[in-house]
């Protein structure tokens, strides 16, 4: 069958079917809209499966997230759901972490291990988050009345350590008192993962904000988007400068597809129950994780790989 419309991507060194990329962006956007979480963690593996070199897939996905999170940040800012102080501290950590992550990829690219690190990080993060979400939704379906995430219900060891850290300041918008080090360190951690995985880090940042920074949910999404926007701006520029792996044409097609897909996704989500959505999303995350794990475990078809991603 003749494929109708192709586009040559000089950064990836290959041509892709525009409709296929657009459709893939649309499907990820649709899922993103249905489940209310980002699609970055799905987009990079799908691009890799399409034949885009992993380093180009991850960097171009970061570029796509810049566009996707711009609109979201503005919408949340207008509603007053962005904790600027917290967001800026997470951002400083994210920029440092993201820069470190890009340098790490550069070194690993030279050693030929970057693709392996991307795959292993994905398997670990997707496995952890998928299993956690699956368990949580199962419990919620059983009890029916889900309790809000642990918000200082008991002074745990974690809470005592957090309170003993130096530089405690008040974050008015979030209504929490924390050490300045907390958002810096956690932002740095997400920044490293963001550079390695080519994702905004939303699916890591949201649990970090809810469970570790103990921020209220309505501020979490807006602040997460705010921080992710700037983290991805940094990662995109650094990847373009250091590794030459950003394909902005690919990013734009994905962005257009995902934006349109997300609009339909939001409409579908209104017709489904929350717990059903969570179970479905957890299953999806676990399917992607299993696919990547199998690829790591099974003997590859070809026992050679290029050095430097492509």
């Amino acid at each position: 069958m003749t494929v109708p419309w192709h586009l040559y991507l000089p950064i990836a060194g290959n041509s892709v079917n525009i409709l296929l990329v657009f459709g893939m962006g649309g499907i990820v956007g649709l899922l993103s809209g249905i489940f209310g979480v980002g699609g970055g963690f799905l987009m990079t593996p799908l691009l890799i499966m399409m034949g885009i070199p992993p380093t180009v897939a991850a960097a171009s996905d970061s570029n796509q997230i810049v566009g996707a999170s711009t609109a979201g940040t503005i919408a949340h800012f207008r509603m007053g759901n962005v904790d600027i102080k917290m967001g800026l501290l997470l951002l400083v950590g994210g920029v440092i972490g993201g820069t470190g992550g890009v340098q790490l990829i550069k070194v690993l690219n030279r050693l030929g291990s970057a693709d392996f690190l991307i795959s292993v990080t994905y398997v670990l993060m997707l496995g952890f988050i998928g299993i956690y979400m699956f368990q949580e939704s199962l419990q919620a379906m059983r009890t029916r009345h889900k309790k809000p995430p642990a918000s200082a219900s008991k002074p745990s060891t974690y809470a005592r350590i957090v309170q003993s850290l130096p530089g405690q300041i008040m974050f008015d918008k979030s209504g929490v008192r924390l050490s300045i080090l907390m958002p810096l360190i956690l932002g740095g951690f997400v920044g490293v993962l963001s550079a390695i995985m080519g994702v905004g880090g939303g699916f890591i940042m949201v649990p970090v904000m809810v469970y570790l920074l103990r921020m209220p949910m309505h501020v979490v999404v807006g602040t997460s988007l705010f921080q992710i926007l700037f983290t991805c701006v940094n990662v995109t520029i650094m990847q373009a400068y250091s590794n030459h792996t950003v394909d902005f044409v690919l990013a734009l097609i994905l962005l257009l597809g995902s934006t349109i897909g997300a609009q339909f996704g939001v409409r579908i989500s209104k017709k489904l129950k929350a717990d059903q959505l969570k179970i479905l999303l957890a299953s999806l995350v676990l399917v992607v994780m299993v696919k990547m794990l199998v690829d790591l475990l099974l003997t590859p078809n070809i026992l050679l790989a290029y050095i430097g991603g492509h």
Partner: protein
Amino acid sequence: MKSTCAGIITFFMLMATAPLLRAEELLQVSPFPDGVSIGTFYSGTKIAISGTLPADSDVVIRMTGEAAPLRMKKKGKVFGLLWMNRDTVTFDSVPKAFLLHTPPNLEDVFKTRQKDSPVWQLGLMALEEKITVSPDPGDGRTVVKELLKLKEKEGIYAVSGNVHYAPVSDGRKKFEAEITIPPKLSPGAYKVEAFLIQNGTIAAIDDHSLTVALESFPKILSLLAFDHGAMYGVLATLIAVVAGLLTGFFFKGGKGAH
């Protein structure tokens, strides 16, 4: 005396070039494009090659790229469980492309190892013999076989039996072949050779150069991305932000994916 010597030298020179002149007459290749442009909507292309040759001969067409050393990673297991890239190996002389087109009746020649056959020497198996690896991986030719397998999967190494002949007239026949240029073929200089095969030997060679080059948008994008990385990164970011703002405007400020 001088004129006698000059006459003898001229005679031997003519004798030496005679087979070549005869060979050029034997194999005649019609003109075909000497360049491939990779434009915005490029997804590989096909180059048609045709010509004439004696009825009792065959023609083999081969397109090759410049040969250069290639460093790669051998995959191996870590912790006896997970596959990852491990030892670095260097292949000494790997052509950027190797596309061989044969008539169907000669396909079998390239499938079995026949080191003393000049025709077999044109094929992929002969290339496999020629490529050396350092440091010696100690697994025979396995690693070279893997390299060829990878290149074949990418479509830049291939052997196909798609040289077809038209009916014979005046002791000659027409040949036609189509070289499929895969989208993954990188820009650079390539060589297209037509080999005339008579009685199991190569009786004549006709070679042409072919340039594959980026053009228009891919060329600009490649220059920006590889020569002005920082500026390209800033531009890519700005374009994404503007696109995000526009989509936010059109879709009434969607909450965006992250």
